[in-house]
């Protein structure tokens, strides 16, 4: 029956691309594009809405809707000089008043205080049509970088929220939202774009939740582009398969995140010797070689070197005999197959996520590798796999001994990962102490480059002394395009796609 029907239907999918259209696979539907909510797909929002300041390659801040900006010597005033002649997709002018109106939707508002910009800005004034002044209660150098993220910092046409309530996604970006459903999102070129308009006329986002199906859809010619950490992730195994496929081009970008093995300081892993032994027993090289696409991806610090102020990268030491000595010296005596101290067995609970999204990596196979390595040392590792919602609750409640987590990546780092994972206010800290809080505060308050490097290095050195985590892998950023796509380059960060130079054919 299959063959008979297929004969009637003929080739399906590969030829349904209108001229000037790129079809991009996305794991999630476009959803609600209200810029002040957190419901919509990142890339769809990024295509429509623009920031004042853009995050360029390597963390270089670039002009976007603001042509330039001045930070007062005392750090308490930031003045943005807006680009002239910019209009929203509905023809409304983008000026300082429109910018102020947008910022007031979230600055100082409850629910947005996870961005420190929201709490430190005390006044927003449009001094003329093209000048916007932010007054701060204290200097906050990461403010400019925080303004590069996708939400809630970008700009909606005031005409699209007449009573303050969002109506439709009208921004200033190079793409205009045409329609979206659970299965697709269609965007057309903004011919009045202030910058260089894309060559392509249309972008079609096709929702394909399963990563293997996305790879097949690319190979079958049904989509032209897959990849990116949030758009439609490609894992290391799929990347290896795509690298050997002549019908597609695999692009590999430098990692901007690290997967870390973390410890609960209130468990048996709170003992430094236990953490040091686990670190020494973890064969990071082999784990990367077998599971994560090769030893080039071995992590050597809290951040990969692509992140600004990532500090000194250090080679991980794998020495199982030394690990055993460390435990011996700390009084953990091997009794049969397991080590014991004060009548307590060295049994640890490893919390793993069954459905890793939101930037977390799949660490289940790493958990198995770690379990084997530690068994040889007399440390029993019990794997407990839960879903993501349970994972965050269990970590927040301290119901774990070991877990894996992943840093945020560009454009958030180093500030956001450091403040979210290394402070006592976090629900899921990688490490937290009052001493570390103070070091983090110095780092996020530093303004000149030398100060920043030194302050962040002090944070990393502190973590190093504590053996606060084991860096496992820096996942490369994979994108794959059909051979018909030309001009595509790896974007500056995983929430953005630069399609300006892309042509098909």
């Amino acid at each position, binding site marked *: 029956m299959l063959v008979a029907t297929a004969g009637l239907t003929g080739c399906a999918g590969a030829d349904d691309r209108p001229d000037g259209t790129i079809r991009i696979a996305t794991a999630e539907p476009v959803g609600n594009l209200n810029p002040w909510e957190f419901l919509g797909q990142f890339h769809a929002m990024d295509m429509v809405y623009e920031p004042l300041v853009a995050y360029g390659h390597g963390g270089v801040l670039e002009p976007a809707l603001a042509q330039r900006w001045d930070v007062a010597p005392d750090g308490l005033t930031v003045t943005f000089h807006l680009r002239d002649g910019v209009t929203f997709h509905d023809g409304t002018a983008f000026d300082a008043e429109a910018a102020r109106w947008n910022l007031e939707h979230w600055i100082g508002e409850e629910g947005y205080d996870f961005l420190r910009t929201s709490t430190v800005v005390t006044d927003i004034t449009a001094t003329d049509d093209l000048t916007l002044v932010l007054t701060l209660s204290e200097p906050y150098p990461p403010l400019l970088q925080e303004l590069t993220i996708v939400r809630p910092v970008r700009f909606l046409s005031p005409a699209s929220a007449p009573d303050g309530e969002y109506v439709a996604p009208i921004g200033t970006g190079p793409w205009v939202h045409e329609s979206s459903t659970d*299965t697709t999102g269609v965007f057309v070129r903004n011919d009045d774009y202030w910058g260089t308009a894309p060559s392509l006329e249309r972008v079609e986002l096709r*929702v394909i939740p399963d990563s293997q199906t996305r790879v097949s859809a690319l190979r079958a*010619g049904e989509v032209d582009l897959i990849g990116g950490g949030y758009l439609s992730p490609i894992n290391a195994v799929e990347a290896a398969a795509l690298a050997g496929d002549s019908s597609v081009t695999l692009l590999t970008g430098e990692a901007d995140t690290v997967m870390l093995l973390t410890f609960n300081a209130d468990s048996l892993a709170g003992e430094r010797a236990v953490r040091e032994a686990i670190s020494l027993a973890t064969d990071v090289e082999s784990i990367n070689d077998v599971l994560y696409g090769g030893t080039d991806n071995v992590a050597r610090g809290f951040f990969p070197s692509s992140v600004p102020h990532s500090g000194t990268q250090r080679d991980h030491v794998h020495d199982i005999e030394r690990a055993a000595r460390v435990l011996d010296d700390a009084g953990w005596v091997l009794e049969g197959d397991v080590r014991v101290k004060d009548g307590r067995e060295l049994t640890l609970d490893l919390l793993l996520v069954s459905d890793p999204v*939101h930037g977390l990596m799949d660490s289940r196979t790493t958990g198995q590798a770690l379990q084997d390595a530690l068994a040889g040392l007399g440390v029993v590792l019990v794997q407990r796999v839960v879903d993501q*919602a*349970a994972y965050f609750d269990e970590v927040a409640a301290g119901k774990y001994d070991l877990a894996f987590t992943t840093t945020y990546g560009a454009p958030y780092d180093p500030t956001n990962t450091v403040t*979210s994972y290394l402070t006592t206010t976090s*629900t899921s800290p990688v490490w937290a102490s009052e001493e570390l809080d103070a070091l983090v505060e110095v780092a996020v308050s530093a303004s000149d480059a030398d100060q920043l490097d030194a302050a962040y290095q002090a944070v990393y050195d502190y973590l190093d002394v504590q053996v606060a985590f084991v860096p496992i892998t820096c996942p490369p950023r994979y994108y794959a395009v059909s051979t018909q796509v030309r001009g595509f380059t790896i974007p500056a960060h995983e929430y953005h796609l630069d399609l300006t130079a892309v042509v098909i054919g």
Partner: protein
Amino acid sequence: MGKVVARHLVSAVAVLLVVTFATFLLLRSTPGNTATSIAVRQAGPGASQEQVDRLHAELRLDSSLPVQYGVWLGRAVQGDLGRSDRSGRTVTDEIAAKAPRTLFLGLGAAVIALVVGFGAGVLSAVDRRGGLAAALRVGALAAVSIPTFWMSFLLIVLLSEQLRWLPTSGDRGFASWIMPWVVLALPAAGAISRVVSVSLTETMSRQHVTAARARGAPGWSVVLRDGLPHAAGATLNVTAMHVGMLLTGSVIVETVFAWPGLGAWFVDSVKFRDNGAVLGGVLVFALAFILITRGIDVVQKITDPRLRKAEVGA
């Protein structure tokens, strides 16, 4: 008749109450909650405790279980299933958008499962000792045993990547429906074919069939007139079970073939601890099961006069 309908209605309402309350209990006793999921979506995995606590209060997750369930039930009976915290849309809108897709997927698969299952079962019973029956038995075993996701990928690689006959995924016309229908139908078809084959083989050895043959009735006529109706009871039961499973078991198929129906939506809602959506989904699935099982009861009474008599007697 009126009494029977009333009894069925009361039992249906009782089932819905028990199922939704049990779901409420499970959601509350499982680690993870909506507030944490929203906080992580907003601020990433390192969201602050303050943010989680605030969302907890906003969503009224602190109030007692009976109060929360009571509030939900009070609104649900008025047709208001609340708002999905994951998408921002109302749960009724979500169900209205997704239920027709799952129904379409399930009905297509059910038709294929019934036609293929009955066909294979009858052929297997007729050709009991032949090679065809053996092949069909192996086929049925494979259909039931091969994991759905694996079968899906095999078909996608062959029919989409290699031969480019069918699209890999999405809802883009008849060609795009074939693989999801077939993959979803195969386990049910395998099970139905075995049950039909066994019941028909058993029926065909009964005296009335032998008598029909002795009267000189043609072979196929004996199977269709004297065999199949008697084998229908057991078959209808297994069919009912599998049609119900087609509706709820479509999660993998919906995910692999990018078919945004109720199954995948429900699982994603559970993962997010989107309580309103989970309860809405459970309500729809329970209702579907009740309708299917009651429907099959009716069909069985039509096909088997003994059951009608039993009901009258009761």
